[in-house]
């Protein structure tokens, strides 16, 4: 019954034909204007971002095809893909690719594990929780250069750094005269850089995972407790599956930020002793060696590598995002 009523007013318009198109024709510019009015607030940000981030990258792509050393500007010539060939054959660049992967992987994995432990520890009420959380966030809030300088001079310094000093004090309690005093940065350069970065990034992972822990549905946790599930069972079967997305998000965002790390490598070792990652090597290639074409090609390679991670990252973020959109 209702269907016949609802279709009735529509059918005359369909049959007569004429009024409907005219109305649509008259409405189209208005609708288009309205669509542009909706888009207008978006445009300044969009145009600005394209101009400042996409155009330079296009320029990098073009420069990467040239043989261009700024110290010999007259020799600039089109070189095709030869810069890319050099990126993959040059031992220094290839090594920095390897260093980047190792550095990023280690830092991300260790800081995620530590961050998870810290988040679990903080996900309960205890006296002074806010203060402890503030303490734990502090490493992430120090200016990265300050943090790197602190590790280099205040902690790692072989003569008066806190690590060796503390060790000397500790062994001194037992009457040891000359305890071992390693030169941390020279003896284990990559581990030294990784430790400093882990210290700095663990709070980031902790914050994300803490947000994940606190978004666990309380009634399910309560139910598990009432059912007598052990802490481990609850963690393994409820908390961990719930945290999966947050872990993925932490790992992927962490990778994207840490792949780009420049401050720690620059400050702690200046890229020496096998710690030069790609950002540092590119910086050096263009800023000190003035090899513009080669640096650009290496930059493009970094972008391609990042895109591989980023497409995966976007899918993860997208799933979190659509979850939120559904909730709204």
């Amino acid at each position, binding site marked *: 019954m209702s269907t016949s009523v609802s279709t009735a007013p529509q059918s005359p318009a369909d049959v007569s034909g004429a009024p409907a198109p005219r109305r649509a024709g008259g409405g189209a510019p208005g609708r288009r204007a309205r669509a542009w009015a909706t888009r207008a*607030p*978006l445009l300044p*940000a*969009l145009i*600005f*971002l394209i101009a*400042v*981030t*996409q*155009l*330079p*990258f296009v*320029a990098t792509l073009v*420069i990467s095809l040239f043989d261009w050393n700024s110290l010999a500007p007259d020799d600039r010539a089109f070189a095709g893909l030869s810069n890319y060939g050099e990126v993959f054959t040059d031992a220094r660049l290839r090594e920095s690719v390897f260093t980047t992967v190792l550095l990023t992987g280690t830092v991300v994995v260790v800081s995620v594990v530590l961050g998870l432990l810290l988040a679990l*520890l903080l996900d309960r009420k*205890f006296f002074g*929780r806010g*203060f402890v959380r503030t303490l734990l*966030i*502090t*490493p*992430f809030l*120090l*200016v*990265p*250069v*300050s943090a790197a*300088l*602190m*590790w280099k001079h*205040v*902690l790692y310094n072989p003569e*008066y750094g806190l690590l060796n*000093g*503390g060790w000397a*004090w500790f062994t*001194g309690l037992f009457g040891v005269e000359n305890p071992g005093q390693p030169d941390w940065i020279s003896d284990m350069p990559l581990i030294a850089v990784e430790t400093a970065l882990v210290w700095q990034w*663990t709070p980031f992972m902790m914050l*994300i995972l803490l947000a994940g822990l606190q978004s666990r549905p309380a009634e399910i946790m309560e139910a598990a407790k*009432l059912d*007598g*599930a052990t802490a481990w*069972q609850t963690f393994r*079967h409820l908390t961990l599956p719930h945290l999966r997305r947050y872990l993925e998000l932490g790992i992927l965002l962490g990778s*994207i930020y840490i792949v*780009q790390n420049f401050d720690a490598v*620059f400050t702690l070792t200046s890229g020496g002793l096998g710690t030069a990652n790609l*950002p540092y090597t*590119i*910086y050096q290639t*263009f800023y000190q060696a003035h090899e*513009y074409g080669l*640096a650009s090609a290496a*930059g493009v390679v*970094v*972008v391609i590598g990042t895109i591989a991670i980023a497409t995966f990252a976007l899918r993860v*973020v*997208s799933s979190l*995002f659509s979850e*939120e959109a559904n909730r709204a």
Partner: protein
Amino acid sequence: MSTLSVPQTAAATRPRVDKYAPAARRARRRSAGLGLLAWIVGIVFCLPALWMLLTSFHSEPDAATNPPSLTAPLTLDSYRVFFGEGGGASPWPPLINSLMASLFSTLFVLVLALPAAYALSIKRVEKWTDVMFFFLSTKMLPVVAGLLPVYLFAKNAGMLDNIWLLVILYTSMNLPIAVWMMQSFLADVPVSIIEAAQVDGARLPTVLLRVVAPVAAPGIAATSLICFIFSWNELLFARVLTGVTAQTAPVFLTSFVTSQGLFLAQLCAASVVVSLPVLAAGFAAQDKLVQGLSLGAVK
């Protein structure tokens, strides 16, 4: 998930009723133990930073002792030297440069991001999720891959060593984060009050300033703090694109060590001073920090 607990239910709950009191006491004791553990871990984790703070109040000879001295007398000498009483380079120009770059870029980010977020959350453009992902994808482009053209452009345009170039770059660096964060904050503003304002004849700027902004104010404040932090911390652009006049605080810090030889207490004082604005901003934005860092994906 539910299958795990079902078989245990009947068996486990009944006997526990008798032992309720000791179990609760044990749980309380365990919880207190974990609280204590959290305190210890927190202090150990923060120890390097706390040690740096302590060292900054020591004299140079006391700072460089091995084994370290906890009880050395405290002094403000390092801070006095840092602020130019020792005849070294004054830290004020770099600090002011950093402040300018951070404040102005944050302001520009807000001016660009607020309308954009409005179009992405309240009055949604078609395909708004695609636009969101475009913004995010620019954040995943490694900075170093665009650095050379920016440098060449700046050199040809005579903008090297110019703080406004950094303002522009920091704006682009923070804009995607800000759009994502603000989008999620503005999505929380009830549509009904916006519609009510529009019915009353308010135009877009009025709606944004008088209706949306007050409701989203805490979120806007958190976004600003995070943009401020990222700008203040940035080293690579500042290192390559500035020299003397536009030098920022992080660049100043790196030169601080090499130019004057190593004075440990002074270095610590310098690091503390440079980190102080960021620490203050970060502690203030603690709750929203995670949302900003995860680009608004985690609430």
